[in-house]
């Protein structure tokens, strides 16, 4: 009996069941708080025609950017893709489709998707190109646009600590989109720095309850920094 034990022993087991055409929702902001090993496993599996939902798409040789090398991604839903030359190339040549989405709307699309809310109205983007074709409704005299939520076959997230039951704790700003992404996957996989026994995490300090998490794997992280800035 596995009970609530979500821990898997290999990256193969962590991403088992991922298939061509799936939608993957990924946590992370730039290269901060990304499930590095799970992304490498997707590259290894060479799964194609993927839709990737993530704030950014990594850089050319790290993070989600490595899935561009073998043209595994069909579509990206992101708020900012400016760090990636390969992405720009594939976009301009029409090999990849991008749905640029305001960062707050993207977070809310994931949150709503995970919470069973199919759509929501927001003022963000009203009167801009992203409002084209979307329903507009006024509330209290202000116009809002209708945005649909997002769910995916898989969500891949990075946490600091997990217990065997999949309860997750994030560290500093490596939290970012990870908690929302974790709620929006049919199968949610968490790659973590440390796995502890149930009971070792303080219940009131848990960011993502284990009910959202299907698989947990202990990862090895490079934790690359995109812009090292220091005051000395």
């Amino acid at each position, binding site marked *: 009996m596995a009970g609530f034990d979500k821990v898997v022993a290999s990256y193969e087991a962590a991403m088992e069941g991922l298939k061509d055409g799936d939608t993957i929702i990924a946590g992370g902001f730039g290269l901060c708080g990304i499930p590095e090993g799970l992304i490498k496993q997707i590259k290894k599996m060479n799964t194609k025609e993927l839709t990737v939902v993530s704030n950014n798409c990594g850089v050319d040789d790290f993070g989600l950017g490595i899935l561009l090398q073998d043209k595994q991604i069909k579509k990206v839903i992101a*708020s900012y893709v400016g760090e990636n030359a390969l992405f720009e190339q594939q976009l301009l040549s029409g090999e990849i489709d991008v749905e640029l989405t305001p960062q707050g709307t993207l977070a809310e699309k994931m949150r709503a998707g995970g919470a069973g809310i199919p759509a929501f109205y927001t003022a963000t983007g009203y009167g801009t190109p992203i409002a084209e074709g979307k329903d507009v409704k006024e509330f209290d005299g202000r116009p809002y646009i209708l945005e649909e939520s997002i769910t995916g076959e898989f969500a891949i997230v990075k946490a600091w600590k997990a217990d065997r039951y999949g309860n997750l704790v994030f560290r*500093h700003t490596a939290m970012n989109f990870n908690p929302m992404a974790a709620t929006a996957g049919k199968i949610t996989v968490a790659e973590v720095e440390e796995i502890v026994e149930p009971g070792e995490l303080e219940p009131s300090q848990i960011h993502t309850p284990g009910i959202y998490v299907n698989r947990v794997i202990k990862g090895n992280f490079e934790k690359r920094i995109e812009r090292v800035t220091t005051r*000395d």
Partner: protein
Amino acid sequence: MALSREQVAMRVAQELQDGYYVNLGIGIPTLVANYVPDDIEVMLQSENGLLGMGQYPTKAELDADMINAGKETVTAATGAAIFNSADSFAMIRGGHVDLTVLGAFEVDQNGNIASWMIPKKLIKGMGGAMDLVAGAKNIIVTMTHASKHGESKLLESCSLPLTGVNCVKKIVTDLAVLEVKDGAFHLIERAPGVSVDEIISKTAGKLLVDGEVPEMVL
């Protein structure tokens, strides 16, 4: 003389008030943090999930898990809070952030702003800018008054794809401070040594000049 980037930031810093929660965009807005008056406290919000952004770390403090929205390594100030992206944008979209300062390519006399896309040239994405301009209580735009080729960035109507509509209240350029209301730019201050005529000639949109226009005090 047109203001330097630092001087534009110094002038914007005069708009800060004690107890303000402020989001500073990338570029000149980031510099505003260096000129917060000593006698007030402000807290900087970074939309990747940090309220209370501190200074850059020392080499010894460097931490890959601690970055700002520009993906630079930072520290947390005393009393900071860290939270997820949905909470971060609930603060922004819910109108809890007092002031947003951001750059732009163009602003028009109706307070519309274009800051994220130049068709066929620059398609990087809007990041959090559309949320910020739709949600902040007060928005100040910093930019040069005219492009390198002398074309005005203060227009009757923006020509580039918009980031938000009817949202910009104030603009601080290298030449002037202007308010945007009732479908026009209102000249409030001019940079030291810059004439009203120069500002008029570099403002393509409707510009109202009411009496003597004082010079900025920096």
